[in-house]
């Protein structure tokens, strides 16, 4: 009767939690379909090379407007490769030049013939990022050097207009695009989405469910029986881990079919770090929901945990763009550790040796938070 582990009780608790989860249609949507939609949306947006259009303002040197010589380069270019645009903006003549490039995709430059004042207005509106001005000394480029889009437009255009008789189609003859497996955006994104799925599922599935049970006095009723509290919590974690395996598996399968993603490293290492990640977030979830019986407070607490990590941990874009001083902190966030670990296995072909440390960290986080949570846990 006093056995530490009671298999029948545990089995029924697991079964009950499973049924509870499975019978909520929202779980299927948020757990399975939503991550797939995100991966599809972001994957298509950032992976396929669609035609890029860049608008450039052109300001003629009025003092030499009449001479043929001064407008030569742009004129020559436009005459050779451009076509008058079908529409004109605010009465300004426009010309289009499309650079065909197999490696970099198509870039179409739309040149808007305008004056300085209007060009600045367009820049402020964000319609253009580059202003081309003709002067005595030749062409001048005006742009914000901190804006990567402007930089790119400058690089492409300056090469085009540098006076070489280079046909636009061959400007990137020296460029080798990186389309090798693991280097695409989608390869970066999928491990991030899997990690975030683990965090979200644990935090909302465990924390919110528990707070709701407490507010309905269900917890109070259950602990007034000989039910083992540890079994109740373990059953919750088991159900979460299994659900997360299913959700991550479906997301991976989808990404493999649609984006041809593959796992380059050790499957065993992936299993270990995935379970460790689940334990980490399971523990964090238990601590988060340890006290409150108010679902609104619970909502806030859960968001306070998941929002900063979703933003900082480099799920959608690399966290290396954050200021240097913040990196040591960001790198230690559980979601960063998990996402980096899974990425290393997916992309860099890492094995158990390389991911042992992050897995241990996650495990330790889980155990610490779990025991702290249990210590202060309010069952009534």
């Amino acid at each position, binding site marked *: *009767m*006093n056995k530490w582990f*009671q298999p*029948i*009780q545990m*089995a*029924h*608790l697991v*079964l*009950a939690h499973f*049924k*509870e989860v499975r*019978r*909520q249609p929202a779980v299927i949507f948020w757990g399975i379909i939503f991550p797939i939609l995100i991966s599809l949306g972001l994957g298509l947006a950032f992976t396929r090379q669609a035609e890029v259009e860049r608008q450039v303002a052109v300001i003629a040197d009025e003092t030499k407007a009449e001479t043929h010589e001064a407008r030569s380069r742009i004129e020559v270019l436009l005459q050779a490769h451009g076509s008058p645009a079908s529409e004109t903006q605010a009465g300004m003549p426009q010309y289009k030049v499309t650079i065909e490039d197999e490696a970099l995709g198509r870039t179409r430059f739309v040149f808007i013939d305008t004056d300085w004042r209007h060009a600045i207005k367009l820049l402020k509106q964000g319609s253009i990022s580059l202003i081309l001005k003709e002067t005595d000394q030749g062409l001048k480029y005006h742009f914000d050097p901190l804006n990567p889009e402007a930089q790119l437009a400058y690089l492409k255009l300056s090469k085009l207009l540098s006076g070489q008789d280079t046909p636009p189609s061959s400007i990137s003859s020296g460029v080798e695009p990186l389309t090798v497996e693991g280097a695409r955006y989608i390869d970066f994104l999928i491990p991030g989405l899997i990690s975030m799925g683990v965090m979200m599922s644990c935090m909302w599935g465990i924390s919110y469910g528990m707070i709701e*049970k407490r507010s*309905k*006095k*269900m917890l*109070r*009723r*259950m602990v*007034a*029986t*000989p*039910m083992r509290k540890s079994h109740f919590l373990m059953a919750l974690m088991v159900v979460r881990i299994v659900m997360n395996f299913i959700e991550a598996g479906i997301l991976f399968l989808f990404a493999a079919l649609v984006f041809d993603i593959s796992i380059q490293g050790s499957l065993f290492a992936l299993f270990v770090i995935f379970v460790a990640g689940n334990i980490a977030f399971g523990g964090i979830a238990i601590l988060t929901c340890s006290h409150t019986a108010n679902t609104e407070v619970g909502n806030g607490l859960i968001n306070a945990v998941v929002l900063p990590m979703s933003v900082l941990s480099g799920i959608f874009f690399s966290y290396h763009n954050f200021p240097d001083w913040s990196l040591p902190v960001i790198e230690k966030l559980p979601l960063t550790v998990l996402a980096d670990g899974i990425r290393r296995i997916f992309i860099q072909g890492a094995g158990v040796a390389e991911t042992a440390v992050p897995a241990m960290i996650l495990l330790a986080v889980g155990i610490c938070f779990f025991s702290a949570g249990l210590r202060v846990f309010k069952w*009534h």
Partner: protein
Amino acid sequence: MHPVVEVADVYKSFRTVQAVCGVSFSIEKGRSTALLGPNGAGKTTLVEMIEGIQAPDKGEIRILGKNWKSHADELHRAIGLSLQETRFIDKLTVYETLRLFASFYDLDKSRVEESLDLVELSGKRNAYTVNLSGGQRQRLALGLSLINRPQVLLLDEPTTGLDPNARREIWSILLELRARSQTSLVLTTHYMEEAEKLCDYIMIMDQGRVIKEGRLDDLLAGEDEKKVIEFTLAGDRAHDSNGWADVLKDAPFHIQWNPQTLRGSLVVSDMESEIPQFFSFLQNQQLRLRDMECRRKTLDDLFTSMTGRRLIE
């Protein structure tokens, strides 16, 4: 042999509220005891301390001679309880909920079936708990509390908020249980009919204390011959309540007048002589009755006479 429940000088307070102050009693095996009192009397706090959900600040509680501190698992197996308000796991069926609780007591499916029959929920076995009516939900709570064949059954306001039919269904299940088993019952309620119907011992609580206790007959002993007359007056509303109150003040017997409900009551010991006196008083004052009832004294009257308030306000 130990009493089933022993409560000795128990105190419990929450911040500034003294919920239970110095309550002591003991309950013998097979006895049904009601804790009767208005909202806020401390009934729930007291019963939750017996259930082991809350610990007393002072005093001692023993169940079957054992305390919660060192015998929690054993006591959890010996008692059954239903909380004042429980909601279950929404998307589990009635059967699954009972099955889950059965597993906590190492009981098998056959006991689940018995419990379903006992609380008359066999027809709802596959319904999600979220779709149950108030009465069905309370019956499920009762089924869960009985699943382990408890020696002590603690029910906290088992019929509050239920319609009369649903309330009678719960009562008949409990009466059946009383007739067939030796389970000791402790129930809290603010319905005096419930206490009278289900329990042979009644403790009236108010402001954290037991103000009167005993068998129903003992509590109302000496009051049997007394009857209560309640009446309302007919007449122009312009004849305002204060006017009535003034007139009634001069009656040759004590009339309690409620200006809010425009209802009066008086206690008579000898109906044959006092009721004609009451009528002639009304006639002399040219007052006309709208309605009148004459009934025996109840626990509610007893409570009112002790506290000046009613059980259900």
